[in-house]
């Protein structure tokens, strides 16, 4: 089995490497992927030249993610949500007999343990608010600087995971309970889908944000796309935050949600 695997891997590798010569040079601005074939410009060139005029969003990646490819991103969010729900379905044990495990706090009653708890606790008290503020900045400023819903959501989820690692899972669940994170995950998808359906209710295609200037105060068709992207990103951030913490809390406590690692 070992030798078969090695031979298969080597064969695949040689096959892939034999095609490497046909690729464009590294960093070539005129490669087919970057500049299109012949006279026809590629879609990425359209994104670079026309995004600002279309949407007034300078971060092209955010604009492509939330507007031009909004349908893709909507179901991306659904994929994350489905992953969270399936982990819930696989691991979570509801109302079973609770197996008493030796409590981890019984271990670190020594002077060393106390010192560690003070240092870690103080550091977390200082760090977690900063992390959460930064996460909100990354979400809200995703149009103008690197960032967006996925990144900000992961940072926000990480702040809760840090709390769970520093204290125990119960403390973190006291702040962000299971009911609350599952609700938040649903709300995030509903915000995203709601923006899409709102466009449909105004007799346009799904996620065609332009028409939303009719119900958004003081916007034109271009700014409506920019503002809708912000709303959609907030929805993505809600779902990602909730599901990141759901994955961590279920995996770390084996689905019991008691005290975690």
């Amino acid at each position, binding site marked *: 089995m070992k030798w078969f695997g090695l031979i298969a891997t080597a064969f695949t590798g040689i096959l892939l490497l034999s095609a490497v010569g046909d690729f464009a040079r590294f960093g070539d601005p005129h490669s087919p992927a970057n500049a299109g074939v012949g006279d026809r410009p590629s879609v990425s060139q359209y994104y670079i*030249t026309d995004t600002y005029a279309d949407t007034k969003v300078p971060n092209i990646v955010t604009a492509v993610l939330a507007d031009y490819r909004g349908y893709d991103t909507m179901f991306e969010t659904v994929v994350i949500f489905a*992953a969270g729900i399936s982990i819930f379905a696989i*691991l979570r044990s509801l109302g079973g007999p609770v197996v008493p495990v030796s409590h981890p706090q019984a271990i670190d009653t020594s002077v060393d343990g106390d010192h560690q708890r003070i240092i870690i606790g103080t550091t977390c008290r200082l760090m977690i608010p900063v992390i959460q503020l930064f996460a909100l900045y990354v979400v809200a400023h995703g149009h103008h600087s690197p960032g967006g819903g996925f990144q900000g959501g992961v940072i926000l989820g990480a702040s809760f995971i840090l709390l769970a690692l520093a204290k125990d899972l119960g403390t973190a669940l006291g702040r962000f309970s299971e009911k609350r994170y599952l609700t938040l995950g649903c709300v995030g998808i509903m915000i995203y889908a709601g923006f899409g359906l709102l466009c449909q209710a105004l007799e346009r295609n799904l996620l065609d944000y332009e028409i939303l200037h009719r119900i958004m105060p003081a916007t034109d068709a271009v700014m409506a796309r920019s503002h809708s992207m912000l709303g959609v990103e907030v929805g993505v951030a809600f779902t990602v935050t909730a599901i990141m913490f759901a994955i961590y809390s279920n995996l770390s406590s084996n689905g019991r949600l008691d005290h975690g690692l």
Partner: protein
Amino acid sequence: MEFLKTSVIPHFNYWVYVILMMIGLHAMITKNNLIKKLVGMTIFQTAIILFYVSIGVKSGSTIPILEHHHDDHAEVAAADAHHGEPAESDHDSDAVNPDHFANPLPHVLMLTAIVVGVSTLGVALAVSQSIFKDFGSLEEDEILEKIKQGGAAIDD
């Protein structure tokens, strides 16, 4: 040496991605432990992400975020349109040269691929944890052994 100069150096990103991908594939095929298989899967995904992002690189370009000072468009206006037609826009800057910005499309695609990777990894870890709960092992041969024994017990 000649081969190195003509084939490897201008395409080194593709060589790195193939090597990384094969390391991941080898781990997925031959390793016995389920967690090691997952590590292989993650290396495989990372290789693909590297492949896509390196395709979008343009030498001398910057990140795909436009300059947007409200009163100073000098940076943008200095760029001449090499490809594509100038944007017919109502804001007062001239066309943006696509060669000056990295290709945004691979970045978007890989952003979503990373997210899918995290989700699949989470589900895979959950499944392995539940396998460990049932069989007391993460080694493939031991699990197969126990499944066979269990099957025999049910047949009896």
